[in-house]
């Protein structure tokens, strides 16, 4: 049984079919990439897993559990965390507070205990802080701990977004374009972090990415989407040289000329 199973999922927005009978499997410990031209439906797949949309047909199962039965805020309890393409951080809060919200699914105390700040609440706060500090260490966010998001540069915000997802100690991490807008050095860092996430933390990664260089260096398996349907699936090399994929990215002429994507 795969960690994440998406079976024959279709999603329509009015007359537009955003996801067309898509099936895919992500195994535990893999780093899996979804690629495809803009508008292919990649982020929509993420939004389906996050339960912001409900598919017309099909099923999504995580570790055997039916994801489609859950409300959006229950998905993290399964062990799924995600980042957003256009950074959705809490811009008025500090980095530390953002990361602490990532720990929300691990909270144990209720409202009254929190209002009275009972010792159990204090102990829990220390535990959360400890977990968050590990993420800060991992991502080298120490200088930004108490900075408000609103003043931080884009690259740092991307990292904080990743950190917030990591803070919830997920089993599956959904990264929506983790390298978009990053410089070469920042993309390198991202690559090493994703590597470490898989190796040291044992977290499975599913990412949407346009940067084929990053994808070929860090991913085990790639699935190419176009117009909501699967074009090809395989190792990065296989997908990059697949004729249908080349056609989708570069046009039919490129196929005959033996072109390769990135």
């Amino acid at each position, binding site marked *: 049984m795969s960690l994440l199973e998406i079976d024959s999922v279709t999603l329509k927005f009015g007359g537009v079919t955003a996801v067309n009978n898509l099936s895919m499997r992500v195994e535990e410990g893999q780093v899996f990439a979804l690629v495809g031209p803009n508008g292919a439906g990649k982020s929509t797949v993420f939004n389906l897993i996050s339960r912001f949309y409900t598919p017309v047909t099909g099923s999504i199962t995580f570790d055997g559990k039916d994801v489609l039965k859950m409300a959006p805020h229950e998905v993290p309890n399964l062990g799924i965390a995600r980042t957003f393409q256009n950074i959705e951080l809490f811009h008025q809060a500090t980095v530390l507070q953002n990361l602490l919200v990532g720990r*929300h699914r691990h909270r144990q105390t209720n409202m009254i205990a929190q209002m009275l700040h009972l010792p159990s609440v204090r102990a829990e706060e220390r535990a959360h802080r400890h977990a968050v500090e590990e993420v800060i260490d991992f991502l080298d966010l120490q200088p930004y701990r108490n900075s408000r998001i609103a003043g931080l540069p884009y690259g740092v915000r991307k990292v904080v977004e990743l950190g917030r997802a990591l803070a919830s100690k997920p089993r599956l991490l959904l990264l929506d374009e983790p390298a978009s807008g990053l410089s070469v050095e920042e993309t390198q860092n991202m690559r090493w972090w994703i590597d470490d996430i898989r190796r040291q933390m044992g977290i499975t990664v599913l990412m949407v990415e346009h940067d084929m260089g990053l994808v070929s260096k860090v991913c085990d398996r790639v699935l190419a989407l176009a117009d909501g349907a699967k074009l090809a699936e395989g190792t990065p090399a296989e997908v990059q040289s697949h004729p249908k994929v080349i056609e989708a990215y570069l046009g039919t002429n490129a196929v005959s000329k033996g072109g390769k994507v990135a």
Partner: protein
Amino acid sequence: MKFHFKTDYDQDIRLFPDWWNFTLYAALLVLALALPLLIDPFFLGEATNVLIWAIAGLGLMLLTGQTGQVSLGHSAFMALGCYSCVLMMEANVPFVLAFLLAGVITGVVGALIAIPALKLHGVYLAIATLALAILADDIIVLLKEWTDGVNGKMSPPIDLFGYEINRWNNPVEWYYLVLVVVLMVTLFYRNLLRAPLGRAFAAVRDSEISAQAMGVNVAQTKTIAFGISCAITGLGGALMGLFAGAFNNETFNFLLSIQLLMMIVVGGLGFIHGAFLGAVVIAFLPQVLSMTTDLFGRGVAIPGLESGVFGVILILFILFEPMGLYGRWLKIRVFLELFPFARKDMFKRQKSYLKTERLR
């Protein structure tokens, strides 16, 4: 330049980050406790009024400043808190119980009202709550068997464990009573802020989508925010009615809601201090205005002057200091702390372009 050297997590979790901060607030507490010895009963009454406004303001601050839900309807909850407390006191329920129950009732009603209101955002929520405030005025009149409608009710004197606290005879006791309530409300508020629920409130304010993706049940969080906020404001309303001596539906009309919102904006939206600073402004504005008009020779009270001046103050604040009085204080403090390294544009707002929210 101040530097915080931290050695354990508790320093961030504690209420007071360092000894200096603690001493300052301790001194403030001592001042507050000693106030009756320093000023005469009239000004003590004014101070009590400020604290009552602050309680109501803290309630709204939790909802609007912390959770981002704009409410123009809190006058309705103040009315609910007041009428329920007084009705219970008239039914011989002991004061402390009536007071706390009034808070609970208002909180529960607030949470119930929140449930349909969850779907509304931004302006729509503001309009719906404004409509609620206007309705409350009429509903109080309609329920005249209980509320004595337009004639209003006289506030019964407070009977605290056999000891009577009367507005006019015992201003000192009244002051301490309100002070205790303020301290407890502030303590609970601060405790919430440093706990997961407080962070969840801020998450809902800043990005509902990613809050959900982090496991925050947005609907439940908003309902809780409404509940707690209305409970606190209800307590403030009860104190306001009891302190005023007499009240009717006009005391809690929708303009009160608007004043409350304006007050917390002037004080500083999102900061606890903002509620207190705003309360000072709103409580002393009438006095200052009447002194100024006397100075300029127009003896008779000018109708609408208070609202007009308040309006001008608001506009000036929003234009020049959107973070409110406390925000301005923070900027000054940061400047002094970083001196001479403070940069000129540290708090400059980034230029942003309007993208329609109708495609939300």
